Structures are given as structure tokens and as C-alpha cells.
């Protein structure tokens, strides 16, 4: 009696995403084993790619999903970095403990900050977050115990806590950076797949509409802002553990920790998890190719970002995803039509 010869099925994973999961696992295994076959330069570059990827994912979560276009994330990179140097240098805390505290500390600072900047809307929120970051940079440059204007260095005994041997130390820091990057990507992915991710996607698409359907937009944004700050602080600690030195200009640099990150996300594709990967790769490739020509890569990056924003606002990944119907990190659900086997 039933005329239906087709039923529908709801799927999350796609064929491409399953293939990709396997490929990503193989690649990750390759990266984890890098210390045993690559040199220190390779490790430094991959670690840099890993932390830029994490920063890009976090900014994408803020701006691409929660609609919080912050240009002040460098505040939390700097705070995380300074927390590591202060806790190890002044409080004599173990370096791993200090690293673990750097993130929550940055998150804690983000709570009062959000009270001020959440009063601003849109582009004014953006510049407001930047002012806050400038305030932290100025405060750091006034506090003597933080080295004032000249900053702090990590001393040899602190580094020897990780390992007395330099190669072993580099390996440890490299693996930690990979782990943190993986952790951040994983958290963002799982968050977006959860109920909160649905709320976030709704806020991204229309804030008033999502509010009218019962999404507590303020609370969602607040939680995302604080959680992002905490993760950014942890990454900040790691970045400056590699650099061994921090100063107000380096720690709170808008160009290094926010501007290039924004360009990565926009070029790769804002509002997708895949986009930041692509954007980060494009940034690193451009910089390495044009390494001999000063800062021209930044000019080129700016031009590419402008063109993408105007001509293909969904970015490189948005274009690929639309053209080939691809999704490597399935966060949504899709309907699949299939012939009904049981009725035949």
C-alpha cells in the first residue's frame, strides 16, 4: 500500500569526512614522530603553524560563530605569556603548573573585561577590545616585577625543569604545542557539534531570531568569550615558552597575534572549521616564499584578504565546499535520500 519507495536518513559524517579522518590521523602520527626524523627548524615551523591554527580556530569561534569580532585577542596571548614568566620566575612554580594556570588566569581576567566591552556593538566592540589590550600592554610596561618596558626572560633553571638536554626540551615543547593545538581544534569541533554549537550557529545567522527562539544570546556569548580567552592564554604561555623572552610590545602585538590571524580566517573561510586550516597554510606558504622581501607578504596578505572579502566572502574553503559539496568536519546534519531496501 505504501507508495514510498524512498526513505530519508539523517547523517552527520560524510564519505569525505571519513576518508579525511583517516588521512588526518596518519598525518598527525607523522607530525608527532617529527622530532625523530626532522630537524629543529622543521619543528619550530610546525609548532608555529600549530599555534597559529589554534589562534585562528579560536578567533573563528568568536567572530565567525558568536558574532564577537574582537581585535583584542592579543591581550590574552600577552597575559598568558606574562603569567607563565611571572609564576615561574617570581613564585618559583613548576613550569608545567604555571602553563596550566596561564589559561584559567587569562579566562579570569576576561570576565571583568567582558563587562566593559560587551556594552559596545559591532565595530565599536572591535576597537573597544583593542583599547583593553593596549591598557594591559601599558600596565605591563609600568609594573617593575614584570620587567617594565623591557620585559622578562625565562632563566636556565626554569628551562631545565622541562629537560636538562636542549634537544629533549625542544621536543617536549614541540609535542606540547601539537597537543594544545589538537585540544583547541577538538574543543571547537565538539562544541559546535553540541547543543551549544547549534545555539552559536543560530546566533551567527541571526541574533534577534535566535533570541526569540529561546537562545540566551548574552550568556552564550559571555561563555564563549571567557573560554576563548582562557584557551588563548594557554597558547600565549606556550608561544612565549618557545620564544624564551616576553616584552609588552611582543606579548600584546596586535599585528602578530590578531591581524594575521584574522586574515587567515577570512582568507580560509570564516564560520567553518576547515577555513582556518587553509588560511593558516596560505599565510605560512606566502611568508616562507616571500621571506627575502621584508614585509611585502603582509601587503600581499592584506590585498588577498580584501579581494576575498569583496568577491568571495565565504573564503577559499567556502568556495571549495560549495563546488564539491565537501565537509571534512561535519558539524551539521544532512538529509540523505536512499532507496528503501526492506520493501523490495
Amino acid at each position: 500500500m505504501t507508495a514510498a519507495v524512498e526513505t530519508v536518513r539523517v547523517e552527520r559524517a560524510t564519505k569525505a569526512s571519513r576518508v579525511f579522518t583517516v588521512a588526518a590521523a596518519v598525518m598527525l602520527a607523522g607530525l608527532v614522530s617529527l622530532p625523530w626524523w626532522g630537524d629543529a627548524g622543521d619543528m619550530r615551523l610546525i609548532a608555529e603553524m600549530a599555534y597559529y591554527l589554534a589562534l585562528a580556530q579560536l578567533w573563528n569561534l568568536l567572530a565567525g560563530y558568536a558574532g564577537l569580532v574582537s581585535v583584542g585577542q592579543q591581550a590574552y596571548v600577552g597575559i598568558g605569556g606574562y603569567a607563565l614568566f611571572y609564576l615561574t620566575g617570581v613564585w618559583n612554580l613548576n613550569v608545567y603548573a604555571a602553563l596550566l594556570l596561564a589559561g584559567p588566569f587569562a579566562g579570569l581576567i576576561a570576565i571583568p573585561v567582558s563587562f566593559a566591552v560587551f556594552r559596545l556593538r559591532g565595530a565599536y566592540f572591535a576597537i573597544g577590545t583593542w583599547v583593553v589590550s593596549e591598557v594591559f600592554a601599558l600596565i605591563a610596561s609600568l609594573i617593575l616585577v614584570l620587567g617594565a618596558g623591557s620585559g622578562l626572560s625565562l632563566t636556565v633553571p626554569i628551562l631545565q625543569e622541562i629537560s636538562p638536554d636542549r634537544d629533549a626540551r625542544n621536543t617536549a615543547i614541540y609535542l606540547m604545542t601539537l597537543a594544545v593545538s589538537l585540544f583547541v581544534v577538538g574543543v571547537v569541533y565538539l562544541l559546535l557539534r553540541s547543543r551549544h554549537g547549534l545555539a552559536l550557529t543560530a546566533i551567527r545567522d541571526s541574533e534577534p531570531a535566535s533570541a526569540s527562539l529561546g537562545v540566551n544570546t548574552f550568556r552564550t556569548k559571555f561563555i564563549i568569550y571567557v573560554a576563548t580567552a582562557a584557551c588563548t592564554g594557554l597558547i600565549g604561555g606556550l608561544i612565549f615558552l618557545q620564544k624564551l623572552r616576553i616584552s609588552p610590545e611582543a606579548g600584546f602585538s596586535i599585528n602578530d597575534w590578531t591581524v594575521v590571524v584574522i586574515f587567515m580566517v577570512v582568507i580560509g573561510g570564516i564560520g567553518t572549521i576547515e577555513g582556518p586550516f587553509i588560511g593558516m597554510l596560505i599565510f605560512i606558504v606566502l611568508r616562507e616564499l616571500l621571506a627575502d622581501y621584508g614585509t611585502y607578504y603582509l601587503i600581499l596578505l592584506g590585498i588577498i584578504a580584501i579581494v576575498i572579502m569583496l568577491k568571495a566572502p565565504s573564503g577559499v574553503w567556502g568556495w571549495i565546499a560549495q563546488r564539491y559539496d565537501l565537509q571534512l568536519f561535519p558539524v551539521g546534519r544532512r538529509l540523505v535520500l536512499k532507496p528503501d531496501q526492506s520493501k523490495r
Partner: protein
Amino acid sequence: MEFLNIFIQGSLLGGIYALFAIGLSLSFGIMRLVNIAHGDFIVLSGYVALVVTQSTGLDPFTSLVIVVPVMFVLGYVLQRGLLNQTLSGGLLPPLLVTFGISIIIQNGLLQGFGAYDHRLQEGPIETASLHLPGGIDIGVYPLLVFAVAVFGIASLQLLFYGTRLGRAFRAVSDDANTAELMGIDNRKLYAVALGIAMIFTAIAGVLFGIRTIFDPAAGPIRLILAFEAVIIGGLGSLWGTLIGGMVLGIAQTVGAALDPTWQILAGHLAFLAILILRPNGLFPRTRD
């Protein structure tokens, strides 16, 4: 007396911040454009003046005859060719595109002129001062800058409320779609608006370049100061912007009187305090 001195010096300092802010306030008021590259345009004006003074031997004030039209044309072309395309698609496009322009200007200047400090030389007027009764000395140059800011805002008010062009600006600002239905060419009007904003940017850049050294990375802090003056004064109010600049200048002078290294920080903190207490600024007019 000390209090009065701080008030006067701070207000005069606020004149330059108001001058920074006029361009930002105009482009926000008319086309809701938040121009992240605003500070870099101020610095770029300084470099244009530097090239003009070095190649023609003109003094910085006279160089404005060339710098102002150059910046007007740049603003017109940029709005017509690029920024108009960003105004219909929400928050990100204008923010990102002006961010891109900012990075291009900063690194372009860095490649072209190097990272060195530059200054424009105007001669004895830079250091001349007036003695007021009560032992207060005020600099002739800060007074001049303040007068230029007041004169600039007054002439903009005249433009807005006394001319056809001003009426069109107000119409577009109130309701861009209806204005278009009434026969106004919004795209062209926006281009003229950014051109006018750039005139003030050029003046601010040259006047500040005479007073303080600048380098390719000096733009962002100018943007932040301009932004703070606009927000303190209230969005869309030009006289409010002047007051906002003065509040910022006074806060910085108070900070500097306590400890010279606190000057900029005190300004930022005053801004954040006003943001928390009066999020719409002191004299709000435009709703965004």
C-alpha cells in the same frame, strides 16, 4: 592654580584628538563606516607632507595646499572604488577591508621610508608661548591646533545645516534607502563624504607631524585616540567629539601630572570608565 593649569593644558591637548576624530566621526555619522585605517591615513598625510616639503621646499603649513587635495582625491577614489562595495554586507566587510588597507599602508610606508622617525619642521611657532596672569603659560602651537579644531567643526556644522550638500548628507545619514528614492546618488555622496573626512585627516596629520615624531607604525594609536574621543563625546555629535577630545586630553594631563608614564594609560582608563557609566557617550545623537 595647578588644577586650572591642568584643565587648560588638557583641553588644548584635546584639540588635536578632536581633530583626529572628526574624520572618523564623519564617516561613521554619514555611512556607518568604522574606518580602521583612519589612524594610518593620518600618518600617511604626514608622509605626503614630508615628501612635499622635502621636494618643493615649502613649509608644512603651506604644503597643506597640496596634501589636502591629494587626500581628498584618495578618499573619494577609495570610497567609490572599494569601500562602497562593503557597505551592504553587514559588519565584517568594512572592518576587514579597512583592516587590510591599514596593513597595506603601514607596510608600504615601512618598505618605502624605513622604520625611522620623522618630523615636520615649522620653525619658531612650535615653541612660542603666551604668559597668562597667574603664572600659567600656554603654547601658541597647541592653541592654534585647538582653534583649527573648533573652526573645522564649526564649518562642518555650517555645511550640514546651511547647504544643499549638507541636507543630502543628513538625509542619507537618517535613511539611506529613502534618500536614494528622493534622487540622491548615495554612492557618489559617500565618496564626497570620505573625501571631506580625508581633508580633516590631512590637516590632523600635518599639524600632529609638526608637533610629534611619527613612523610607519604610528597609525593605530592615533585611531584609538580618535575612537575614544568619538565614543566619549557620543556617536554622531561633532561638538560632542570636541568635548570628548578635551575629556581625553584632560585625563591624560592629570595622569601625566601624577607620573609622566601614566599619560596614555590615564586616557584609556577614563575612556573605559565613561564606557561603563555612560555607554552612549556624553552627547549621543546617532543610533547605530
